[in-house]
């Protein structure tokens, strides 16, 4: 396993994060925007595990894994709330195009 350097993992994570960020800016469908946010969260999880793999201290390594679990928990809560909001907006407006949902702007 030691043959793959940490920089390769971190570059992959950076690329996935950037693709997710670009998707959040580009897409108009809020469900796909949520998918891009999941992409970004997973990229961060990959950096957590990469740094944990390169830690000398056992306790710190375990802490990295625990934080990944917390990120997954927060992502699950966020998706549940976000999709609930999307369903509620669809009932109200019959569309979920985020450029036409500007209730708070008016």
């Amino acid at each position, binding site marked *: *396993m*030691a*043959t*793959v*350097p940490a*920089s*390769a993992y971190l*570059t*992959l994570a*950076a690329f*996935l994060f*950037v*693709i*997710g*960020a*670009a*998707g959040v800016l*580009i897409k*108009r*469908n809020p*469900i*796909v925007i949520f*998918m*891009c946010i*999941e*992409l970004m969260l*997973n990229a961060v*999880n*990959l950096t957590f*595990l990469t740094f*944990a*793999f*390169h*830690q000398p201290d*056992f*306790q710190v*390594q375990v802490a990295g*894994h625990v934080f*990944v*679990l*917390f990120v*997954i*928990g*927060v*992502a*699950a*809560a*966020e*998706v*549940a*709330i976000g*999709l*609930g909001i*999307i*369903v509620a907006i*669809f*009932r109200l407006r019959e569309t*979920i*195009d985020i*450029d036409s949902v500007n209730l708070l702007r008016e």
Partner: protein
Amino acid sequence: MAERLFFFLCALIAISTAVGVVASRNPVRSALLLIANFLCLAMLYFTLTAPFIGIIQVIIYAGAIMVLFLFVIMLLNLGSPEAQQQERELRRPIAWLLALGLFVILVSQVFLVVGAAPNPQPEAGSARAIGYAMFTQWSFPLLIVAVLLTVGVIGSILLARRRSM
């Protein structure tokens, strides 16, 4: 050598599926590509001696969360061709420019930081070690996440409930 080959194969599939998630016009196709991406990341987690996180990734992300996504796509009938929206044409070059800048910044930091030698300790990724740390050292954050998830479930039920007149 085999590890390198496996990493680059997984990285290639992960990158191409991530680009596909953003490039695809069809939300169902985006969701399926995202599942493939999560499975590739789970493989990479296994190579980082994190088998428990890899299994959790497959069960929770590729299983539960993506089923929720597909359910909502099906519920709102977004898979039909007339419901597929165009991308924002005007903001696209600006978005890719910002993304490129962010990537350059992140990667420059990556090559500054890395000097640490890998230190594989397979015990650290086991369910036993993670569970012990979570219920002793990190018990308070665990409680907060538990409360957050409970509030999230109740809140989503309240939000999606049909108002009865």
